[in-house]
């Protein structure tokens, strides 16, 4: 299959116009010995054959719609209303690029502006940017903002062990070149508050945390504020459909993973990181910002703004290198939130909440299983099992059930603990079946 339009005749006309005899000649300046390698790739194939291959590969997977899925841990199986993908398939949206030329990009610009607005209101903050790669990198970008806010004078980031382990990994990857300490997540018992001091740039916490717990962050916010550190909350956006926005705990930055808002699981990506903060930090935000303005005809319109923050202007002095971000995913989130709306998001949140509690209670009553969470939780909870989680999950799979996350993999103290997520897609019947199989495996 080729998408190259040239005919033989056109090719030779063009070569003549250029003044060369062959295509090879165009590469005369390239090291001759290495030119035109013989690549070990498959032969070209027709679309029909390619699609068959892909179909077969996809069928070699067990997907979550073929099973009951109780796995979350940072990626959630939610229902995506049909209209969302119909919007994404608009050719003018997905085949455009970054709206450098606003006169012919108002569609993208207004959609991003709306995404920013939706995130701003959802998080309760004052301003949101056009997106980051995912929840993990938005946390890293928050840390960088805090470091810049403190002009590099503070060299400690305090993180809660209740933040998604992979987010903490990414944070450490991003900051490995800086001279600073990332502390607080040494063990679950650990109280981060003891780390907060005058050298602390940012305190980061997850809400609900990785184990599903809904903590009141009021006190932590005050500690951070007192120490002059920024409070960053990693929030689950569906939970914000019912829970107090982090702004109410005095959060300075709210970041998170937007995947639950209309983006398919897709084996982990593309997703979208959202990033909201206070107006006072707007000039330190990484990434694109779209602002309202007017055009030469007096019409309201939108442009990318405050670009001097960004790499293409500030180059080596920019605080982030982000360029391409998650435009189309921002559109998905905007379409999702517009479609489900105020009432719908609340409904999803509550469905998740009640179903998770129904499941938790039922499992807690089984012999051999015990609910680990002591605090209120949202749609995810931890169960102490009396066997290795991997073994239980294997049996569950035989029943077409995708079991929860094996916490022992990353939290040694939580061996034989399973993190279970429940969403609106889990009917009562599925939950009951799940509980029954767990019971048999106790």
């Amino acid at each position: 299959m080729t998408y190259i339009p040239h005919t033989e005749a056109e090719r030779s006309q063009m070569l003549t116009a250029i003044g060369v005899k062959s295509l090879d000649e165009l590469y005369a300046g390239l090291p001759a010995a290495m030119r035109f390698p013989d690549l070990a790739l498959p032969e070209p194939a027709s679309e029909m054959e390619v699609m068959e291959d892909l179909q077969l590969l996809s069928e070699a997977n067990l997907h979550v719609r073929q099973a009951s899925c109780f796995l979350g841990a940072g990626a959630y199986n939610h229902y995506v209303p049909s209209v969302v993908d119909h919007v994404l398939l608009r050719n003018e949206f997905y085949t455009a690029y970054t709206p450098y030329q606003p006169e012919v990009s108002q569609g993208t610009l207004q959609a991003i502006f709306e995404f920013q607005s939706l995130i701003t209101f959802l998080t309760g903050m004052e301003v949101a940017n056009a997106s980051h790669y995912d929840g993990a990198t938005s946390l890293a970008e928050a840390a960088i903002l805090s470091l810049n806010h403190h002009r590099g004078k503070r060299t400690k980031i305090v993180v809660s062990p209740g933040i998604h382990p992979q987010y903490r990994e990414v944070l450490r990857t991003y900051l490995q070149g800086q001279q600073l300490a990332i502390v607080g997540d040494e063990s679950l018992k650990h109280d981060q508050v003891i780390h907060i001091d005058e050298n602390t740039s940012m305190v980061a916490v997850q809400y609900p945390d990785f184990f599903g717990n809904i903590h009141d962050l009021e006190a932590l916010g005050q500690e951070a504020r007192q120490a002059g550190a920024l409070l960053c909350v990693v929030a689950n956006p569906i939970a914000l459909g019912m829970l107090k926005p982090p702004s109410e705990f005095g959060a300075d930055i709210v970041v998170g993973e937007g995947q639950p808002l209309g983006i398919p699981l897709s084996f982990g990506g593309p997703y979208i990181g959202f990033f909201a903060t206070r107006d006072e930090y707007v000039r330190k935000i990484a990434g694109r910002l779209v602002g309202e303005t007017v055009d030469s005809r007096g019409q309201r319109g939108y442009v990318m703004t405050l670009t001097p923050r960004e790499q293409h202007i500030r180059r080596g002095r920019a605080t982030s290198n982000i360029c391409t971000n998650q435009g189309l995913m921002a559109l998905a989130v905007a379409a999702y939130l517009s479609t489900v709306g105020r009432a719908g998001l609340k409904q999803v949140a509550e469905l998740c909440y009640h179903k998770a509690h129904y499941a938790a209670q039922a499992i807690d009553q089984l012999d051999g299983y015990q609910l680990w969470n002591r605090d209120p939780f949202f749609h995810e909870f931890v169960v102490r099992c009396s066997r290795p989680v991997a073994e239980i999950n294997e049996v569950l799979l035989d029943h077409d059930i995708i079991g929860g996350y094996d916490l022992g993999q990353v939290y040694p103290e939580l061996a034989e603990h399973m993190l279970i997520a429940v969403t609106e897609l889990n009917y009562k019947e599925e939950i009951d079946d799940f509980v029954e199989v767990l019971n048999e495996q106790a």
Partner: protein
Amino acid sequence: MNRLEPNIYELSTPGRPSHRFPDLDVPLAELPDKMLRDQLELPELSELEVTRHFVRLSQLNFGIDTAFYPLGSCTMKYNPKVNEDAARLPGFAHTHPLQDTRVLQGNLALMYTLQEWLAEIGGFAGVGLQPAAGAQGELTGILILRAYHKDRGDKHRKKILVPDSAHGTNPATTTMSGLRVVELPSDKRGNVDLDALRAECDDTVAGLMLTNPNTLGLFEEHVEEVIAMVHDCGGLVYGDGANMNALLGVIRPGDLGFDVLHYNLHKTFSTPHGGGGPGSGPVGVSEALLDYLPGPIVDTVEPGDDDLPPLYGLVMPKKTIGRVKAFHGHFGMHVRAFTYIRSYGKSGMREIADHAVLNANYLLAALRDTYHVPFDRTCMHEFVVEGRFEKAPGVHALDVSKRLMDWGFHPPTNYFPLIVREALMIEPTETESKATLDAFIEAMKSIAQEAEDHPEQLQTAPHTTAFGRLDEVQAAKELVLCCRPAELATLEN
């Protein structure tokens, strides 16, 4: 009678019935009252209102599927529709990143194969697919260089050499990685200035970031020498692969001596640009750097045989720099790029580069007499001209760009690279036909003439688009970054 599209909050009506989810089928649990929010300022629209809104918005965009889009450095080639279908197959779209990999062998086989194909195309020992975009590929690559030196106890290597023609992400990446940028000038032919490079090559060099072809669309004429110089002083060479489209099947960066390189699946491998992402920026590395790749990557954990395919697993490279993203990268983009490479196949790779280079040189040949070409030699997949006119000093590159919109074309990249005055960076890509290029040539020539005859036609352009020029100064001054909901919804249901 000008029908501006209201924003989503303006379109909202309190109490509007919208999408409905199933009724609750379990008993109510007690809610954590203290933790509940009492306001949720989201809009309320019917599905028709949502659809109409976004359909109307979409029509305000130019995209590849509506117009020629020669945005230099971005490789705006056709995005095959079959790629979109493939990524949406339920067996891919509905897989959870933390499922047992034994039931996701389809995903893993695809990723493994893509790693292999990209490594083969680039001439590298291995590829990691995790980075989310070009810039994150750069960060990954530079952190790998850094880790490599650190591992060898080479602690004072803090200098990254970056040509002045480089994309802004290159120096920004360097800084983010905790290293120091040293800018290298370009010579008269658009190459890295060898003397300047030689002068910087010492034992504090961590590496060089080289874009080849560079952002002028020119192949670095002394590339082997440049790489050798850096290697000789103990540095490594990072390749910014944004311009790989020119090299497919033509020359492999790995063969040239690059140690690390990021690929842009959203440029070279046809995954859609999505109005600004998602992209995907896999990184290829030489043998020596394999263990530093971010992870996990896909590897065979049990070999296959005649009857059984191998068992694939996710493994963390031994000395990994760590994760750069949660999970495994932009899998949806991996599916599209896989589909693309599988379609074109072995022989197709070079055909892509050939026609990208052919199209660029054809345009260059046609425009050379009308526009000043600052570095005029055979180009690769793109080239840069100056959007200024001696006889029309008040006309700028931006004016040419805006006027092109009236011809139905998306403008080229403006004001980049910075080393060219009034730069117009033109990248036609291989999927455009001669007829389209001819129409673009006609437009460019006519605009050049118009610049002299009627400069105001350019300066006030565009005229035929739905929007005229936008006031960027006002945007930055007033800084409205969020809708003001007409009425802050206070009803809480």
